Structure formats: C-alpha cells, structure tokens
C-alpha cells in the first residue's frame, strides 16, 4: 500500500529509480520466515527483497555463485567452505544468524541411556549432515570417531560403537517421518518442529551453540561490502529478528548474533 503512495510524488519517484532488487535464495522455515520478516524494513530503505525458494541444498549456492541471486540463507560455514573448495567459488559468510540446535529425538525413550543395544538411529543421508550427526553423537561420547580422512566423517570413520547402534541414512524429506519408524532420529529443529518437538524439552542430546554450524547469511566476494547486502545483514541481526526467534523458536533457533 505505502509503496503505491510513494510513487505519486515526483521526489520519491526518483528514489524509486534507485530502488535495487536484492535476491535471496533460501530453503525452508524458519529461514524463509526470517527473510519475510525483514522485507518491509528493507523496503523502507529502497531495497526490494525478493526471496527465491529452492528445493535442495546445492542449488542455492550454485545460483549465488552464478550471480543469479545476491545472497543465500540456508547453510553453515563449513558447508559453504566445502562448496567453495569443490566448485572454485568465492562465497563469503556475511553474518551468522542462528544456531539450528541439532538434536537426537526418540519417541519411546526419555534418555540416551534407555536406548537399547542395537537400536536404529536415523540421520539425514547427505554427506554434510552425516558428518554433523556423527559429530554430535561423538560430542556426547555415544560413539568414537577416528581421524578425519576426507572432508567429512562417514560411517566408516566410526572406530567404537559400544552399544552397537545401527545407523540408517534417509533423505532429509523423510527424516521427520522416521520418528515413528526408527528408535531415534538425529535432526535439525526445523524438521523436529512440525512434530511438535523442541530441542529444549524433547531432545535427548543437543549440539548447543559451541560449534561452527550457525546458519549464516552468505554472499559473494564481489558484493559482500555492497550497501544492500550490508543493509540486509543489519536487518537480519536486528532486535526484531532476535525477538521473533526467541518468541517463536525458543531454543530451536538460537540467535547467533550480538
């Protein structure tokens, strides 16, 4: 509504000309919610924020590298670095926004100790998430991992598995559904939330914030200092976002900015 009114006065028409469009690729809620949340704020600054929702976790980076979008918001820095390495890209982190508190959930068990010998633990089947899930389990001493031989840990890096857990890798899309099927599931809050689960009250184990896996706003080397990107970063680390996260995503998405 207000934009239309702006256009009526000549002075602001000029401003309209300067109006830049900023394209941000993202994946799912709460990432998409945050982008939506800052839209009006950026509009006031003459930035037309356009969100592009993509369906897998390679395309947002490919699109960014190809300059089809100006920034993306869906990943943590290690994942981005791996993309840079493998694809000769120069994506750069702008600012971390929140920690997606990775956790282990089980339908029939209250604590990790109750999990019986040989239980099936489901995790996502893409390499970075396998790495992260195994690291979470190792962090709590459930399993022991050897030296990292490749970029990522894989199941073959497990050198000790005292309770003989079986690890089932399934697609991200299926992860939440495995809550009924497997004995335990390792997943991000984004996937746990629809089940009504939160890291705070339901997770047997969580990752906390002592890690590198904060979901980060990412741009490119060539535009990282540009005004719109900086304004976006500013908006995304504003108190409103913090309030939004704390109100709606208590411990599911822990703000990662000051």
């Amino acid at each position: 509504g207000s934009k239309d009114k702006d256009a009526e006065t000549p002075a602001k028409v000029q401003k309209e000309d300067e109006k830049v469009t900023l394209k941000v690729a993202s994946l799912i809620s709460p990432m998409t919610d945050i982008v939506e949340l800052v839209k009006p704020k950026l509009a006031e600054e003459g930035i037309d924020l356009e969100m592009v929702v993509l369906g897998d976790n390679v395309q947002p980076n490919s699109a960014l590298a190809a300059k089809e979008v100006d920034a993306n918001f869906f990943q943590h820095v290690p994942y981005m670095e791996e993309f840079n390495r493998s694809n000769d890209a120069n994506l750069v982190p702008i600012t971390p926004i929140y920690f997606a508190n990775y956790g282990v959930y089980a339908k029939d068990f209250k604590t990790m100790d109750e999990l019986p010998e040989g239980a099936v633990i489901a995790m996502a089947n893409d390499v970075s998430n396998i790495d992260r899930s195994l690291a979470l389990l190792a962090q709590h001493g459930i399993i022991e991992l050897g030296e990292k031989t490749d970029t990522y840990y894989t199941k073959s890096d497990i050198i000790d598995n005292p309770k003989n857990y079986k690890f089932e890798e399934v697609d991200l899309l299926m992860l939440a559904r495995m809550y009924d099927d497997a004995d335990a599931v390792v997943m991000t809050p984004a996937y746990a939330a629809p089940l009504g689960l939160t890291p705070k009250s339901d997770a047997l184990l969580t990752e906390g914030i002592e890690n590198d896996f904060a979901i980060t706003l990412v741009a490119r080397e060539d535009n990282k200092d540009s005004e719109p990107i900086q304004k976006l970063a500013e908006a995304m680390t504003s108190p409103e976002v913090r309030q939004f996260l704390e109100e709606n995503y208590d411990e599911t998405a822990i703000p990662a900015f000051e």
Partner: protein
Amino acid sequence: MPEILIQYKTEIWQSIAETFAMVGVSILAAILVGLPVGTLLFLCRKGQVFENPYIFSIVNLLVNVIRSFPFLLLVVFLIPFTRLVIGTAIGTAAATVPLSIIAIAHYSRLVEQSLLDVPKGVMEAAVSMGASVREIIFKFLYVEARSGLVLGLTTSIISFISYSTIMGVVGGGGIGDFAIRYGYQQFKTDLMMYMILIMVILVQLIQFTGTTVSRMIDKR
C-alpha cells in the same frame, strides 16, 4: 471452502499457474520437437522409407541418454544451457527447459511406437502415389496413427505433470512442489491432500479429454 485453502489462496493459485506454465511449455516442446524426432526415429528404421542406420543410431542414443539421466541430475546438468536460453537457471521459466527436454525424449518414443502400428499397406499406397517423405508423414502416417498419437500425448502429459513436481529444486514451483513444501514438510496434511486432489482432478480431466478425443478421431 476449507479455511486453509482460503488462507493460502494466492499461493495455491500461483502454484497452479506455475504448473500450467511448465506443463504447457512441455506439451509444446513434445509436439513441436518430440513428434518430429519420433517420426525421424520411425522413418530411419530398418525397412522404412528413409532408412538410415547412422541417423537412427545417433537420435536413438540421444533420446536414451536423456532418458537415462536421473531427472534431478539432468536438471543440474542442463543449468548452463538453461542459463543460455532463458538467462537464468532458477524459477519457473528456467524449469521449463529441462522439462521440455525430457518431454521431447519421452514423447518421441511413444510417437515411434504409434507409427510402427500403422499398417504397411497404407505406407505402400502412399509410396505408390509418389508421395514425398513430407507427404507420407502428414497425409498418411499421422492421419492413420492419430488416435495413438493423441493417447500417447495424453500419457506423456500426465508424466510431465509428475516430472514437474521435482522442479522445486530450481525454484520451478507448481502444485506438486507446493504440496511437498507446505503440506509435507510443514506437516499440513490437509493442505497436502487438497493439493493432491487438485492434481488428481487435473490428471483425470486430461485423461478423459485424451481418451475421448482419441476415440472420436479413430475411424478404423
């Protein structure tokens, strides 16, 4: 109308529009390119009027290569090409490129098969009247095979709709993607079911139209 549908009205309409756009372009590609390619496959076969083992092998291989790509990887693989054609590799317009290519490969096989069922005698009549290859195709082959061509196109269109649901990967959108994103990933099961219902109705309509038309034009 259920509340959830009203709530997401804009998005639903948009996703329907996206599906129509993607499938519409695929249909065009299937007809404008898939039909000729399938015809070429048929005509270059052993014993046909345009017999040519080289062209046949090359086109046949090409179609097979396209059909053997995992669809997701085809989409990825085609990104440079898509960018060249559309100017961008993401969004509904960009999604039409891989969809069209798969549509061409898919329909051309069904065309080839339909043409193989045209009685030899009809081809002979055409040849004996001195018909050019072009005339054989348009005045005889397509006329005699038309009901099969329509049914094949119907089958293909339904496959295109199914393929289009994967185009969320590059931001293609569409009803199927909407159902997956909102309905499935966000556990809005009722919304998902409504979306699927829309797809079922759409497919049923297409099938009904296809079957009816193909029966109406079949005078054999």
